[in-house]
């Protein structure tokens, strides 16, 4: 209850059960942290298991080589006092905590990480290229948002509605396919903002396809995107914070069962 958590120190986090992709805070990271403890501020990411959007700040921090603590919320069951304090407007994960500052909205967090920390660029230096990157990141967030994931979760390939959805989805995937232009990543030779924005397609899409039996991202239609998905999921830093496929499939299956059960009750 809110009263219980209110008496705790604000930085006490709710520790949920361990998950296979919690970052191993290595001895090296601890040493670095102790050395720089006075100079640097602690970085924490509030997220939940299997969160597409929560992955983004994690991969961004890993690309920059910034150690962080992962605070896992037990969503959608409980929203901790810490979450409600730091994201009162949307009450959603992810939230980045940097010292006493909090930053919300995953792509805004990624841009913040790019600006606040040294390390390889996540956005290009050139203004026009930056605008292009922001445009495509936004495109992904518009076209591959909750309605897309819901539709593919519930799809079984039968109805006309689903055919229209698939047609629209393929059109949008084709636009992204066109943006790779023979490069390994949308960012060129290295992972950038658009790759991070598209990361849902590199792991989550496969899980949803497995559950629904729909095969959207085919090699024949989207060879560049398929190659990209393998590159992204194979990257050392991304790998460390992508959810395990089997665990992800299990979680989505459970959520789907819940939805179907609720729909039955409502009939």
């Amino acid at each position, binding site marked *: 209850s809110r009263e219980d958590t209110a008496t705790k120190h604000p930085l006490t986090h709710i520790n949920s059960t361990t998950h296979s992709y919690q970052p191993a805070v290595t001895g090296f990271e601890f040493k670095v942290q102790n050395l720089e403890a006075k100079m640097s501020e602690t970085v924490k990411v509030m997220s939940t298991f299997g969160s597409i959007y929560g992955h983004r700040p994690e991969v961004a921090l890993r690309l920059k080589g910034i150690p962080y603590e992962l605070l896992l919320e037990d969503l959608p069951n409980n929203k901790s006092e810490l979450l409600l304090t730091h994201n009162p*407007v949307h009450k959603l994960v992810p939230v980045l905590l*940097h010292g006493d*500052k909090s*930053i*919300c*909205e995953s792509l*805004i*967090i990624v*841009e*913040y990480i790019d*600006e*606040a920390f040294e390390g390889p660029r996540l956005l290009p230096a050139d*203004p*026009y290229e*930056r*605008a292009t990157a*922001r*445009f495509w990141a*936004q*495109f992904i967030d518009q076209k591959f948002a909750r309605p897309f994931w819901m539709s593919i979760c519930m799809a079984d390939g039968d109805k006309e509605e689903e055919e229209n959805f698939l047609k629209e989805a393929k059109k949008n995937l084709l*636009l992204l396919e066109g943006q790779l232009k023979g490069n390994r990543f949308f960012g060129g030779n290295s992972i950038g903002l658009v790759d991070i924005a598209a990361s849902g397609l590199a792991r989550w899409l496969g899980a949803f396809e497995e559950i629904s039996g729909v095969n959207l991202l085919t090699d024949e239609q989207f060879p560049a995107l398929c190659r990209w998905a393998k590159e992204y999921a194979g990257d050392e830093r991304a790998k460390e914070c992508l959810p395990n496929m089997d665990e992800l499939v299990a979680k989505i299956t459970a959520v789907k069962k819940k939805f179907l059960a609720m729909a039955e009750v409502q009939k």
Partner: protein
Amino acid sequence: SVPASPKQRKDRIMAGEKKGLVLLDFWVSPFAQRCRIALAEKGLACESLEQELLGDKSDLLLGSNPVHKKVPVLLHDGRAVCESLVILEYIEDAFPGAAPRLLPADPHARAQARFWADYVDKRVYSCGTRLWKLKGEGRAAARAEMLETLRTLDAELGDRAFFGGEAFGFVDVALIPLTSWFYSYEKHGGFSVEEECPGLAEWARRCGERESVAKVLTPPEEVHDFICLLKKHYGVE
């Protein structure tokens, strides 16, 4: 698709070769107005090309924004930048010497500004559209959502002169053109921004004193007439 006419080809070539700034515009678009206000604030000359949106869209628009086919589009030396907030950030990045800066230097403050501009983008216009398009329960829900949004913005503004603090900034530019639509939202929703959020109403008046804003914003009655036109167009009573 139909091949381009000589005039259309010429327009496309002219815009493609044109040095400087061209904005693909629409007179009442609050999103295009964001760009015009930012450019005016910074004293950056830009040619406005009014687009036909309710009829056939121009080749130039379709070629410059093939993904969304919408205004605004900023052409800079012939290269297209789309999506109004992306355009605002582009203007900041591409003209670093052009004062005033709309985004602060501090990364956290920048993130805050981006958060609130994003909030405005997600919450105001689409909700407002539901307010005039829907009736009964749909309209009531939109009304409740709009009031919550305006109150949240009002609370965020607090005692400050602008969302940017002491200076007119990114969030102010993002929100101010939408205030022209408040009058129509008020009429459709049966509420008063002045009563619900006096701070926000005062902020809108304060922004309206700026030359860039005064010259660009559409008078609220004209926005309301436009919405009534749209209602006929969509067959909404």
